[in-house]
């Protein structure tokens, strides 16, 4: 048995005890205390090397979810604004606004996210030799976030653009008749209607963005001191134990939970956006798995 010899790591004495005793001493709570925040560098530094317990796997993969949520939430929130501007740009009659918006959307929707990550990483790496200012961009927390931000902005912009085009003409005419124009018309009529129409598709985009965050640590960006995301740890355990049937289902469980939370949150917003409509005219949020990078 490979795990029978006591492994000496960490300076905490319990790691020197034989395996049989350790099982009683390291409770799951202690594992959670040690590894719960491992992915952001708090707690035990060394990853477990032998006798991987179920508790360790759940804790570490869950700890990695912090990064998935971090990337997803920040990219989504920042991308929302760029997406709105790009959608307006694409719908604009001015070619100086329309063309850049179209190219931006084409560039990020037409190429694989995986390649975008690689390209961005090596781009930042080259820029690093030009100026130390670009040092931080080569780390995942910023560099990958920028790629995800641009990527989700492009996908959402396409969704918002489609919604902009399907705003009922009557709504806009009514706005004109009421004397709304410019910013006020956009703020009170165009934008809320666009959001309302786009929301079901945008919910899907959000879900798939969260799924896409798992690519970060497989695409060049280094996991500093083995602080990775959920898939990074799941892959670590699958490599070490040569048993994919434990870590990947755990990961799947975490992501299904995350997806359910997202559907709940976005569904609540959808309800608010549709609350002025009669019951049967409301759009339901329906999950369609046809968006992937």
């Amino acid at each position, binding site marked *: *048995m*490979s*795990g029978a010899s006591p492994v000496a790591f960490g300076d905490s004495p319990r790691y020197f005890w034989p395996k049989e005793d350790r099982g009683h001493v390291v409770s799951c709570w202690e594992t959670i205390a040690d590894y719960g925040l491992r992915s952001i560098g708090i707690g035990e530094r060394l990853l477990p090397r*032998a006798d*991987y317990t179920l508790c360790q796997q759940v804790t570490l993969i869950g700890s990695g979810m912090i990064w998935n949520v971090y990337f997803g939430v920040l990219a989504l929130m920042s991308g929302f604004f760029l997406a709105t501007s790009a959608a307006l740009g694409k719908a604009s009659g001015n070619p100086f606004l329309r063309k850049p918006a179209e190219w931006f959307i*084409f*560039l990020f929707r*037409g*190429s*694989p*996210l*995986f*390649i*975008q990550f*690689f*390209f961005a990483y*090596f*781009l930042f*790496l*080259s820029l690093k030799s030009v100026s130390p200012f670009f040092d931080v961009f080569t780390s995942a927390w910023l560099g990958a976030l920028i790629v995800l931000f641009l990527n989700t902005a492009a996908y959402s912009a396409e969704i918002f653009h489609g919604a902009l085009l399907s705003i009922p003409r009557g709504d806009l005419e009514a706005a004109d008749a009421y004397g709304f124009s410019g910013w006020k018309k956009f703020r009170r009529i165009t934008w809320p209607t666009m959001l309302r129409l786009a929301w079901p598709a945008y919910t899907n985009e959000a*879900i798939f963005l*969260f*799924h*896409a965050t*798992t*690519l970060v640590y*497989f695409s060049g960006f280094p996991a500093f001191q083995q602080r990775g995301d959920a*898939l990074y740890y*799941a*892959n670590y355990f*699958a490599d*070490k*134990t*040569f*048993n*994919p*049937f434990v870590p*990947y289902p755990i*990961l*799947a469980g975490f*992501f*299904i939970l995350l*997806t*359910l939370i997202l559907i709940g949150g976005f569904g609540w917003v959808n309800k608010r956006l549709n609350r002025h409509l009669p019951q049967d005219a409301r759009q339901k949020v329906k*999950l*369609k*798995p*046809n*968006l*992937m*990078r």
Partner: protein
Amino acid sequence: MFSYCTDPASLEGLTWLSCYLTTGKHMSIYWSVGTVLLLLAITAPTALLFGFGGATAARAPFAPLRWLGKGYIAIVRGVPDIAFFLFFVIALDQFFEWIRHSVKCPDWDEPIRQGNDFVVCAEAKLPLGNAAQWVHETYGFFLAVLTFAIVFGAFAANVLFGAMKAVPRAQMETAEAYGMTPRQSFWRIMVPQMWVYALPGLSNLWMVLIKATPLLFLLGVEDIVYWARELGGSKTARFTDYPHGDWRMWYFFALLVFYLLFTKVSEVVLDRIMKRLTHGQATAGGEAQRKAA
């Protein structure tokens, strides 16, 4: 490759580049583009087959089969596709080895999982330990194709399931009224008609599939991403006739352009197919064509 390439150190500019881009190693990256196309050519029909099976199962009158089909469709919605890729490659490999193990070594009495090892008898190893290099590569590629087919089959199943439901109810009722058995009405009425409804979803899936091909790299196949990393890394004059700095950024830029062109061409072709298929159909698209003519 060219006759003037014998002494690369003396070359400059475009001549140097023409020699550099035709070295034996660069031929490997061009071949790996062929690998990507081969993967697409095999995976697309296989995934469609899996999808058809999944969609049919999800409509089956026999409840456990229906649950299986619905579960197959549902699981990919909640879990990142990359996780599936990483999972299936190991899981399928172990599954095949386990089957061969049970057939070829029936007297083996040790457990297959020993601690962190997966042990099968030597005859059951896949590929066999003494197999040629190309057998290993082909087996790896085969596993990758199967993995892609399983994951994308679920997406295709979702599209086809929706398309089957979209076939007008009256068509099926008419088939029943003519005395067709369920099997006959399925094959003669539903299947020929569902494709128009499925095509938008399937063409979207094709784009998604193109953009998923770089993930071959994660499955251990020497694909374009692998070679871009290999060839782009900085080379010193000691090991190559063509020394250069870190050019990985440019290699990935080339891949980005390759994928952009690929998706653009696909989009144009699929648009044409869609136009041809909707011609004369009783759908909104067909109606629009009729009015325009």
